[in-house]
């Protein structure tokens, strides 16, 4: 299946949702999204890191240096309380949007 590049707003939502599972460094975030989407969604590093920096600046996530499983220094990102609220809000509106879009597409397909 062909890989799809993510739109910016969507990437932010996915990153937030991914971080909902606990602190994680950049590479893990990217690979987790990719794995969970069964390799459909591909996260560009060139977009991921700027997105992380931007969200950190907005106070949605925060970061600190830590060690990975095999003891390498990495920067771990985690959700702030504000980020968690933002995640819930964005998730809801995304779901609403996608159901609505799906409904429209379906209806049009059925020719009504």
């Amino acid at each position: 299946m062909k890989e799809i590049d993510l739109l910016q707003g969507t990437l932010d939502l996915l990153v937030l949702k991914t971080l909902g599972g606990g602190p994680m460094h950049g590479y893990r975030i990217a690979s987790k999204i990719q794995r969970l989407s069964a390799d459909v969604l591909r996260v560009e590093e060139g977009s991921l890191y700027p997105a992380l920096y931007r969200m950190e600046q907005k106070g949605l996530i925060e970061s600190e240096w830590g060690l990975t499983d095999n003891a390498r220094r990495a920067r771990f990102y985690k959700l702030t309380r504000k980020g968690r609220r933002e995640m819930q809000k964005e998730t809801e509106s995304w779901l609403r949007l996608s159901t609505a879009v799906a409904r429209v597409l379906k209806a049009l397909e059925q020719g009504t």
Partner: protein
Amino acid sequence: MNVLRLAWLRLKAIFTGHRIEREIDEEMRLHLDLLAEEYEQNGMTRKEADFAARRRFGSALLIRERGREVRGGGILVDLIRDVGYGFRILRRNPWFTAVAVLTLAIAIGANTVIFSLVNSLLLRALSYPDSDRLAVIWSVPANHPEQKFPGTSGAYVLLRDNTRLFEAIGAARLYEAFTVAENTDGANWERVQAQWFTQEMTAVLAVQPMLGRWPNDGDDTNSLFIVVSHGLWQRKFAGSPDVLGKKVLLDLGVATVTGVMPPGFELMNPDAEIWIRQVVTAPGGPLPRSPNRIFTAIGRLKRGVTLEQAQSEMNALASQLSQQLPEVQRGWGFKVESLQSVYVGRIRKPLLIFQGAVFFVLVIACANVAGLLVAQGVGRRRELAIRSAIGSNRWRIIRQLVVETVLLALIAGLLGLMFASAGLGAFIWFGPADFPRLNEIGMDLHVFIFTLLISVVTGLVFGALPSMQVSRADLTGALRETSRSSTLGPQRQRLRSSFVVLQISLAVVLLIGSGLMLRSLLLLNMAQVGFMPHGLVTFQIPFSRSVYYQGAGNTPAGGLMVEFDGKLNQMTERMRDRLKSVPAVASVTVAITPPLGGMPRRVTFTREDTPTEPAEREAWAAEWYPVTGDYFETLRIPLMRGRSISPDDAFSRRPVVVINSALARQFFPNDDPIGRRIRFDLLDDQPREIVGVAGDVRQNRYELSLQPQVYVPQDQLPRRMDLNIARQVLVKTFVVRTSAPPIDALRAAVREIDPTAAISTVRTVEEYAGAQLQDLRQYTALLSIFATISALLCVIGIFGIMAHAVMQRGNEIGIRVALGASPGNVLRLVLRQGLLLVSVGLGLGLAGAVAITRVIRTFLWGITPTDPVTFMIVTAALAVLALVACYLPARRALRIDPIIALRID
């Protein structure tokens, strides 16, 4: 809060910028490594995996750049980098930097000095609590509301008891001079300025003594109670707290000290050192009917009441008053004016004019430095071209250049602040004597912010213009040029020329302004004062009542009484006769105040034959001089008509007066004043018959119009001038005309008559005359300093552009000389350019001066603001200066050796 947080992050990033980049790099490296590991696990070789990871990852540099954009210091970091670069550039051109900084620092310093004055004197509130609620209620003639007088005691009592809009209204007699001795024996007497305050003044001003209290109801109304200034307390009582309750001798009698005011306390007369409790009719009593206008009413408005509301209340009370006291109040109204405006009224105009003048200086300095920048910009064209070739955009370059100029201006501002604090110290030291609140002048945060602001704005303005020009560099052209032949393009030349024209025209305006004032000063110095001041020496002697009054029943309060009996006159006459016999003394007279020294008392009056006033009456008051007949002879005041005051007037029951020509012209335009009678608004005074008309004396030399003046015989003064209490000491002024000032001989002569006589304030009348012009002299000096600075800057500007032009055209001139141009031809060629600029600048400047010098009209004396002599002199002087500034560089053109000039290219 987001904005704050962002600002904080940015700020933090400035100092942690390197760490942020390092961290981003480390994060990227980890990501790459992990990616490569993943590929390796999927079966690639180590090398392939690395390569694949890198390819997939894309540009790490870009991510880092983006990361820095988001997480770094942003524009702030860029600015700091620009500033650092700017410093290096400025250091690389030490001469340019020094000249530019110094030029700007002088201009900014001058602006700061004047702004400090404006700030301290015009903008800052007076030091009384809630001082914006304080207002002065003047008495004004109904048809001439611009003439402001103190009021009668009747008017004051009516206002005090009937106002609804003022919390309290007090009254003060602002200018009185008394002698004060430090104890009741009269030892160490000293002449000081004093003010009388009614009890209500304490509530109006709301300032308490730092020691003791104001006199109050509990203090006997028949005795004198005073509060003294901090300075007097230190000087006479060594700052001892024992001063409270101490009895001192005033010329009015024994007074008890009840308090000491804090340092800096004053009301409309910074020299006053004693405040005497003034007793007036208590509320509910009958209105006093005294015609003397001596009480300045000052009120504290209730919260929220405007001056207009207060004015309409006063208007209503004025008509009520003129019904109740028609004989003294008819034709008089009130005018409410805020105390703040009373204070700043006199100095507002000079200060604003100076602020304008220093602004001109600043513009001229800016033009100069901008001119330098344009010239310097030529040298930097290659640098800028290279920078824009490797990707700097135009905005970025302009920003760099502007940062440099702002930096320059800020350094200049710092230096200017230092100049200003020195200059301000000098101003306070030499400052105009009549500046109010001199002790409050200083630099505060406002001044600092002002300096910062004008520095930044200066930098932006003089930087942005030339930068725009420079940054429009034509890339290929600039890069191809050899550094030696870089020249000003025609456009830039025009820009620099217009700077020079601007400078010249502003300098012309300033020079003409100060020239006008200088000429006024010269004219004033030559102007006739109406008598001959040269050769007049004055000194004062106090006479004590205890020696010269022998009448009985001298209860100090009220009642008609003779203050001093004939014994005093006998004494002064004996002294006068003895003084006359001193060699070199031509004549002697005994007066109350020295000629040209001190403010004469002004007394309002009416013509007796026309009690209803002509509406067009111009002056309502005349200067009042109690004199003897030899006053005219000693001062050499000419007598125009009638007779002088004669010794016989002392024994006559017919009160007389000698008026001056100005009064005669104004009040008796059509008839002969001799034999007519005028009535003065003075208690116990009878209508006086005019017996003579004397020449006009310019008592206040600065007053352009001639003031009405009256001379009354000293032997015919009203029994009491306006005091309920007899004076205990009377100070007489001896005026001696002598060809040499033998002060010791005069002193000895007086001592021969009375060995105890205390001679003081020995001055020549010329010294008094000089003191009167003090302010104008200082204003003129200040404006002249600014004008000189601007002229110098201007000459430097012209010189700069001409020198540059000659250097640039070295080639062309070389060719011309080679082709046989004579030195005259070359000189003319170069001079023509400079003279064109100068004449355009002069023309604009003269036009500007015609339009603008009107604002200093009030400082001019005897000339119009467009005085042709001044205009001509300034034009000629500046033309000569400009010619020299053009000629020096032009002469260099003559020395150009065509061979060398041509070889250069």
